[in-house]
């Protein structure tokens, strides 16, 4: 599955990949990267439209409140099936490995749509669960400062979160990811407006 069918041409340049690798490994408070205008503009619009036809289930517990699709491995939508197939393709896994230097499991991914509406949130946690290596987010909405919904990354001392150091504001067609580790503490800021925060997120797994 050729990368150039899916990614913006900018990300196909070997020099760009080398720069991104450096940026990822120098990122604070833990290894992460944010790639704007990542996917081909036609593809991303198709993905957005396709995701909006999926069924979202409202989920609420002490740690979170948002709506989520089932894992898109079970989707009947061809666009989303193709998108999933691309994410687990050898070409894209190699691309992710070349930036992160992580050995990722082939053909293996968790993938679901998430929808945060007014007052939805996800409190601080580290995402650590056996097999999870890279957490990723594909934003399909653009949020402004007053809308909330930013991804917040925390500093930590001795693997305990202390304060927010970096925030990633969702922008349409931004692909963000971080390495899951004992210090990958993050949260999703409460959405504080009527703007809806739509995204696809999940994890690449350890080889």
């Amino acid at each position, binding site marked *: 599955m050729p990368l150039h069918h899916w990614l913006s041409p900018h990300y196909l340049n070997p020099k760009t990949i080398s720069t991104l690798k450096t940026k990822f490994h120098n990122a604070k408070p833990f290894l992460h990267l944010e790639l704007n205008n990542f996917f081909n503009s036609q593809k991303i619009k198709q993905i957005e439209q396709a995701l909006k036809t999926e069924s979202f289930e409202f989920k609420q517990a*002490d*740690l979170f*409140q948002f709506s989520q699709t089932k894992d898109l491995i079970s989707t009947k939508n061809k666009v989303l099936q193709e998108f999933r197939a691309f994410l687990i393709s050898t070409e894209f896994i190699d691309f992710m490995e070349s930036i992160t230097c992580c050995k990722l499991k082939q053909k293996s991914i968790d993938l679901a749509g998430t929808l945060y509406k007014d*007052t939805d*949130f996800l*409190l*601080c*946690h580290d995402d650590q669960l056996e097999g999870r290596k890279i957490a990723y987010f594909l934003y399909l909405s653009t949020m402004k400062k007053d809308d*909330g919904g930013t991804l917040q990354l*925390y500093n930590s001392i001795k693997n*305990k*979160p*202390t304060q927010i150091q970096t925030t990633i504001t969702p922008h349409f067609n931004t692909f963000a990811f971080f390495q899951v580790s004992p210090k990958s*503490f993050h949260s999703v800021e*409460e959405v*504080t407006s009527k703007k809806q925060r739509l995204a696809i997120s999940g994890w690449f797994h350890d080889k």
Partner: protein
Amino acid sequence: MINRFYLQNQELIQKQFFREGIVVLFDILTPEILAKIKIELSKTKWTKDHHILTYSYSTALLTPVIKHLISSPEFQHLIFKICQQKASLFQFQLISCTWKNYTLLHDSQSKPPKYEIILDFTDDWDPKAGGFITYTNGTGEYTKLPQHNNMLAVINRKYHPHKFIQYCNHYAQEKQRMILFGSIHPK
């Protein structure tokens, strides 16, 4: 200090508590003592406290009228009657929750108290703002306590072992949920 209706119906309350493991009594305090507590709370100095992975709220020292209430024979007799616990040790904590405050399930003590008491002094709170005190028993069943000013809840933690305070969202604005938590540990 205590609503006379409840003092006259302690047997019924105890039976309900025995049956359901939880009892909620509205308008528990007489208007006079409630007014005194409200005046104190309006002047109370709150201290922010948080541990990101477990809780975020403010605490304050118990006010003189609250201290007087919880040490009164009238109050203690009612609680002991409900719990059928004759000799116990009380521990209290006064907390306040506003926008962005919460407690998570793993904030619960590894061994919860046998019984828990909650006195809610929250005025004019928009339920849309969250902040519900919620108990779970690990089977996916959730019990949300009502948000009501001048309400007493007594909970048998054997049947409701896990507790959290739902995240308080931006509809809280500047308002505060003021709650007195009490634990009963048998001696």
